[in-house]
């Protein structure tokens, strides 16, 4: 086993991570607030979390991939608990008969951005600076590891009243999503899960790298700008190579649930430079397509982020409301998501839009299909 460089994540980093993960949540994934509270408490009790580069993993290392599954509203009553997520990881170890070298989050965006840190604190192993989405997506198969065709099982689910479930085998990632979702609903529509374990080689090949530090960096920029009363959004765009799409005021919100997802649209009326124009956003838990004058101007997997115009903090699809002053920005998607196979999993057609993916960043970067 090689000796990795481990960096201790400070509490200040975690405060930034919570802000950055919420932005990378692209409207979904739940708020990282409760995860942040858990980590504040763990740090107060003396726990610490170490961060390691995915490039420092040995090929045959095992990495636990964790997430909290369920409805964000349920999470406001049955609160995120660091011990539960650690238990889901231990179940994988007991089932597989091995020990994990490290742990990573399935998605850095939203509340799940803190799950790996919470598990790592209890298990006393490092967090890998990587995830499988580089943002948030609504379904389990919308990951880089699914795009890579890696094995989707086994998956453990833990419920604190003593229900422990393992989905040992499924024919596809979609079946894993369906089966584990059913179990999750029985558990009260919230469960701590540890997804199919990954090898160090798999994480190096298919993980989306350095997203934990990206979330910390983004959060730090925004918090710093808030402190200095400078423009957090300008700082974010410059640092991350993002693009401002629209500035305006939310004038209409329509929500509905279909097949368990929160779908709907938000209309934003332009102010300042965008006065007289209107942007519509379609969402499925996360912001999926931005339309201007009926034309799709940005779409998944490019990250569409709605930010409060003054503070630069993220606005979620569950919390967006009339009258909010927002700036809509796009951040470039990780390359694996915009590959032809990636687009099958997370492109506009995966969400039911008959659109050919066209990146907002196409002109600049020459990327896209």
């Amino acid at each position, binding site marked *: 086993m090689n000796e990795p460089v481990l960096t201790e994540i400070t509490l200040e980093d975690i405060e930034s991570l919570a802000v950055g993960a919420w932005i990378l949540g692209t409207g979904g994934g739940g708020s990282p607030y*409760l995860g942040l509270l858990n980590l504040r408490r763990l740090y107060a009790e003396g726990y610490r979390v170490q961060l390691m580069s995915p490039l420092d993993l040995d090929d045959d290392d095992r990495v636990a991939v964790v997430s909290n599954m369920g409805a964000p509203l349920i999470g*406001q009553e049955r609160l995120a608990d660091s011990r539960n997520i650690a238990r889901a990881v231990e179940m994988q170890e007991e089932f597989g008969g091995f020990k994990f070298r490290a742990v990573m989050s399935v998605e850095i965006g939203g509340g799940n951005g803190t799950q790996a840190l919470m598990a790592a604190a209890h298990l006393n192993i490092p967090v890998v600076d990587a995830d499988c989405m580089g943002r948030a997506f609504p379904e389990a198969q919308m990951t880089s590891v699914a795009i890579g065709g890696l094995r989707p099982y086994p998956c453990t689910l833990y419920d604190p009243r003593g229900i422990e479930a393992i989905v040992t085998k499924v024919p596809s990632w979609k079946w894993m999503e369906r089966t584990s979702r059913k179990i999750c609903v029985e558990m009260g529509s919230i469960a701590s899960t540890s997804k199919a374990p990954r090898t160090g080689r798999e994480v190096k090949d298919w993980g989306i790298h350095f997203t934990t530090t990206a979330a910390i960096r983004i959060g730090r920029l925004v918090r710093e700008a808030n402190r200095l009363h400078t423009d957090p959004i300008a700082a974010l765009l410059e640092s991350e190579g993002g693009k401002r799409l629209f500035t305006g005021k939310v004038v209409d919100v329509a929500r509905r649930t279909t097949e368990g997802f929160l779908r709907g649209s938000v209309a934003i009326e332009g102010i300042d430079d965008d006065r007289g124009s209107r942007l519509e956003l379609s969402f499925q838990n996360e912001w999926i397509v931005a339309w201007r004058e009926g034309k799709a101007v940005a779409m998944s997997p490019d990250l569409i982020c709605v930010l409060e115009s003054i503070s630069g903090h993220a606005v979620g699809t569950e919390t967006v*409301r009339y009258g909010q002053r927002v700036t809509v920005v796009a951040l470039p998607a990780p390359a694996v998501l915009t590959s032809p196979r990636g687009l099958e999993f997370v492109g506009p057609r995966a969400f039911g839009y008959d659109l050919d993916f066209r990146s907002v960043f196409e002109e600049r970067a020459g990327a896209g299909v």
Partner: protein
Amino acid sequence: MRRIGIDVGGTNTDAVLLDGDKVVFAVKCPTTQDATSGILDALKALRADPAARGPVDAVVIGTTHFINAVVQRRNLMKVAAIRIGMPASASLPPFCDWPQGLAERVRGEIFMLEGGHDYDGRPIVPFDTAGMRAAAQRIADLGLRSVAVSSIFSPLDPSCEIAARDILQEICPNVAVTLSHDLGRIGLLERENAALLNAVLHDLAVETVAAFRKATAESGIDAPLFLTQNDGTVMQAETAIAFPVMSFASGATNSMRGAAHLSGLDDALVVDVGGTTSDIGQLRHGFPREANAVVEVGGVRTLFRMPDLLSIGLGGGSHIDPASARVGPLSVGYRLTQDALVFGGIQLTATDIAVAAGLLDVGDRSRTASISKDMIAAALTDATRQLEENIDRMKTEAGDAPLIAVGGGAFLVPERLAGVSQIIRVPFGDCANAVGAAIARVSGEADQVFRDLTRDEAIAAALEIAERKAINAGADPRSLKTIEIEDMPIAYLPGNSLRVRVRVAGALSRIEASREVA
């Protein structure tokens, strides 16, 4: 019906007498340290006028007393916190996100017990009644006198909280109990925080309501006493003793409700210009639009019914920067009558500009002679710009809307503003908050998740719950009106789960009111 409305603000205590819908008399007195002697002064002044004598049907007080106690960390009790829901939510115990100093001051003992519910009504695990009895005994032994109880998903199924209260009443009958589901919304930590804040205010609530009663009795008024709530409705004094947190943000709401009443408009923008700040809000169906968000009170995250307000640093006492002619956000505040030029001071304020411009006639106008015409014009332009920008921020749809300008600093609102169709000024506008208190209505709210119902059925079910609550709180059933319906489909739940929040309000029932007197 003759009602007295009183608003105890930071600077002034305003009192008005309304006969039916008409303002008979209005008076302003300085607010005093203890609040109650200011109320007594205002009531005495009011009763000194012949037109304002005679019987009164209700006295309604809007006060910031309780929120100030939390913010200033005064008169707070040590409380016990009981959380029901283990083994879920174990890692984030009560007080976990409170400012340390405040938590240390009020944290008596924490009890975490098994129980609680899932969103669909299934128990998480059975309620640990033996553990609850032991907790009650410990509370009695420790001599704690106020307890807050929260249970997971209690807004959907309050049975664990109710069972806990029954056990407390049996084992320590003299303890005051706050149940979190009585305070509202889904969101365990925020609801629990509201219950805890309520519990720490118990003694102060008892004392304050007694003092308010004494003040009204001493002015020779024999009428039931009500306190206004954050949402522009009232609660009986007895209820206010049990729920002091419900009055936390009533001042701004009263002012907006008063503006609606005095202007006769139910849908309009309102700007309340005070000494230090201007509060901008929007009336919908005569009530302020609510903030649908977490609100921090004294550093504690809570979910309350709070008006959605934008507060900007523009008021009658705002400093004028001599270089830029920028108005505010600094203010002379309550020192206006000493520090402003027209009152003999040396600070150029918005009031001085208004006097110099002939918009206002107070103090010594000759002391504004040295202010240049350019300065006057530039300062007024800046005030206009600030108002236009922020009024636009509060609008929810495009197009011009009417604006009601109230408050003592309303002279800063010009005759025309971009985005405003009409500027409405009303008699007694500087006492709009006391008028809002006097006309406050009684409300009821429901916030639940419904499954396997159509949207219409779910809303009807929620309406019935809300109406029952309003009637129980003293509303006249015939006058009930729906104030707000909000439905929110919930992601990842089966059975087309729909969360419905409904609020209704009605006029004070006279019979109910006089019964309380007897």
